[in-house]
C-alpha cells in the first residue's frame, strides 16, 4: 500500500481516501444504468399503483438530489429544504385556473423562479451563519412559510387547496404533454430526473462546482485563496432551491392537492434521511435513498405483510434507518464504491 494514489486526471477526488474499490469503476455505471432502465420499464409492466408509486419516488429523488448539492457538495446542512418544495407546489396550485388546464410552459418556470427567489432572500440571510446555527435558522424560515400558509387564507389555510386540472404543454393548439395522463406524467418526471442528474453532474465539473467542493473541504482556505465564498454558497443555495421547486411542482401535480404539510419540517427531515440512507456527495446516492426510503416505508406500512403492526411502521422505519447509518456510514450507494481498505496517510518515498 505504499504506492502513491493517483487521481484520474481532471477528476476531483471527493472521497476521504481514494483507494481501491470493491467493484471495478465501471460497475457503478452499469448498476445505475440498469436501475434507470428498470424505472423506464415500470409503466410497461406495472399497474397504475406502481406508476404512481415510482413517479412519487422519482419526484423525491429530484428533491433529494437538490439537497445533495447543498449537503454533499457545499457542506451546507439545510433543515428547511421543504420551504422551496412547498412554495413551488403552492405556486402551481394558485396559478392554475380552477376548471381548465394551466400551461406547463408558464407554471413550471414560474414555480421554480418563485422557489429560487425565496432561496435567494432566505439564503442571503442564513448563509451568514454556519454549523448548527445554519441548521436551526433554515428550519426557522421553513417554519415561517409553513405558518404563513397554515394560518392565513392565502392557500386555503390548513385545509390546503386542490389542483383539479393538471397542467398541459401545448404548442400552437397541439397538446404535446398532458400531466393528467399517468403514462405521460411518469415519463415527464423520469426525463426531468435524468436532466437534473446529468445537468448537475456537468455543473459540478465546472469551475463553479469545483469551488463548491473546495468550500466544503476547507472554506477558510478558499477564502484566503481569494474566493468570495458567500456568493458561491448563495449560488448553490438558489440552484438547490429551484430544483427543490421543480420537485414540489411535480408533487403538487401528482397528488392534485397541496396543504401546509408539504412545507413542514417532516418533509425537510425525510429528504435529509433519504440522503443519509443513499449516501451523499455523489448525486446517485440521493436517487438510491429516495427509492429505498419510499419502498421500505411502503413495505413496513403494508397491512397485508405486517397485519396490525403495520400501523406502527414508523418504529420499524426508524430501526431500519439507524441500522443503515450504523453499518453503512457512506449510505447504500457506498456499497457501490466502498474503498476496499483505508489507504495509509503517509508519504510514499521517505
Amino acid at each position, binding site marked *: 500500500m505504499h504506492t*502513491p*494514489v*493517483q*487521481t484520474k*486526471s*481532471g477528476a*476531483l*477526488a*471527493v*472521497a*476521504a*481516501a*481514494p483507494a481501491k474499490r470493491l467493484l471495478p469503476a465501471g460497475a457503478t455505471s452499469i448498476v445505475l444504468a440498469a436501475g434507470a432502465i428498470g424505472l423506464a420499464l415500470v409503466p410497461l409492466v406495472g399497474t397504475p399503483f406502481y406508476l404512481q408509486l415510482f413517479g412519487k419516488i422519482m419526484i423525491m429523488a429530484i428533491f433529494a438530489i437538490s439537497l445533495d448539492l447543498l449537503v454533499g457538495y457545499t457542506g451546507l446542512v439545510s433543515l428547511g429544504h421543504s420551504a422551496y418544495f412547498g412554495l413551488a407546489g403552492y405556486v402551481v396550485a394558485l396559478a392554475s385556473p380552477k376548471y381548465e388546464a394551466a400551461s406547463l410552459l408558464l407554471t413550471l418556470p414560474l414555480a421554480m423562479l418563485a422557489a429560487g427567489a425565496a432561496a435567494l432572500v432566505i439564503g442571503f440571510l442564513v448563509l451568514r451563519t454556519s454549523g448548527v446555527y445554519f441548521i436551526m435558522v433554515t428550519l426557522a424560515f421553513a417554519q415561517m412559510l409553513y405558518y404563513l400558509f397554515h394560518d392565513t387564507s392565502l392557500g386555503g389555510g390548513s385545509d390546503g387547496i386542490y389542483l383539479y386540472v393538471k397542467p398541459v404543454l401545448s404548442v400552437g393548439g397541439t397538446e404535446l404533454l398532458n400531466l393528467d395522463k399517468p403514462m405521460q406524467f411518469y415519463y415527464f418526471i423520469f426525463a426531468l430526473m435524468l436532466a437534473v442528474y446529468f*445537468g448537475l453532474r*456537468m*455543473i459540478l*465539473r*465546472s*469551475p*463553479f*462546482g*469545483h*469551488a463548491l*467542493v*473546495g468550500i466544503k*473541504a*476547507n472554506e*477558510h*482556505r*478558499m*477564502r*484566503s*485563496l*481569494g*474566493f*468570495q*465564498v458567500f456568493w458561491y454558497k448563495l449560488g448553490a443555495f438558489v440552484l438547490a432551491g429551484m430544483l427543490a421547486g421543480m420537485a414540489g411542482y411535480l408533487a403538487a401535480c401528482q397528488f392534485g392537492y397541496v396543504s401546509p404539510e408539504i412545507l413542514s419540517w417532516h418533509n425537510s427531515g425525510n429528504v435529509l434521511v433519504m440522503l443519509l440512507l443513499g449516501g451523499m456527495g455523489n448525486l446517485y446516492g440521493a436517487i438510491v435513498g429516495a427509492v429505498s426510503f419510499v419502498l421500505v416505508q411502503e413495505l413496513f406500512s403494508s397491512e397485508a405483510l405486517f397485519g396490525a403492526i403495520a400501523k406502527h411502521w414508523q418504529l420499524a422505519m426508524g430501526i431500519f434507518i439507524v441500522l443503515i447509518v450504523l453499518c453503512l456510514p457512506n449510505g447504500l450507494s457506498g456499497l457501490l464504491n466502498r474503498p476496499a481498505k483505508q*489507504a495509509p*496517510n*503517509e*508519504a*510514499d*518515498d*521517505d
Partner: protein
Amino acid sequence: MTEPALKVSALTKRFGGLTAVSNVSLQIAKGTLHAVIGPNGAGKSTLIHLLSGDLLPSSGSIHLGARDISGLPPDQRSRAGIGRSYQKTNIFPTFSVLENCRLAAQSREPHAFNLFRPASAYRAITETAEQALVAVGLQHRAQFSAGFMSHGEQRQLEIAMSLAGKPQVLLLDEPLAGMGTEEAENMVRLLHELIKDHAVLLVEHDMDAVFALADVLTVMVNGCVLESGTPEQIRNSPAVQRAYLGHEENEHA
C-alpha cells in the same frame, strides 16, 4: 528607493486586555525579503494574520502599493495581490496536487464561468497552476492526492498555491517548520528564487535560513518591534543580543 510594495504603519491588535501586536511599522519592497523573528508569543503569527486579513487590526494601517487594505476581508486582500502560506499545512488533502493549485488560479478569473463547461477546459487557468507547480518543483506530483505527499512536499504545495494566485506580496509563516535538512535546503533555494519577483515577508525560526535570506530583519518581543535593520545591524545590536540572541551569548560565556 522605489515605493514599498507593502507598508505597515503603527499596526496594533488587542485581544481584550492583551496587546498581541503593538505599534508595528515596517515596509517591504519588491525584490526583497523582510524576515520577522522573535521568541514564541512575540506576535509574529498574529502579524501575518493581520496582513492577510484573517484578523482585523485594532488600529494602524496596511497599504498595498498606494491602496489602503486595512479593512478588507481575506478574499479581497488575496485578490488585491497578497498571497500567504500557513504555519500549519493548509491544503486540500483529498484533491490532486494540480487541483489544489488550479483552484488558487481559478480565484483570479474575474469573469463569470459557464456552468456547463468543465473546469479542465479553461486552459489558461490550468497552465497558471502548472507553472506554479514547476516553480516549486512539484510538477511530477501533479496528479497525486495532495494528502499522500511527504510533509516537505506539502509545504512546497502551500507555496505553489500562493504563487498560482500571482501575488505581489508573499507572506510565509514558517515554511521550514518540521522539514528535514535536505528539504530545508531545497526550500531556501526556492525562496531565493521567489525574492526576485516578489516582496516577501518571512516568519521563521531557522536562524541560518533567516540570515541567509533576509535583506531586512525585524525582531519582535511581546508584540513590539525591538529592533529593525540589516542582518549585520541585528547581529550587532546590544538590545537584540540581550533580549533574544542573548541566551546563546550566556551559554557561550
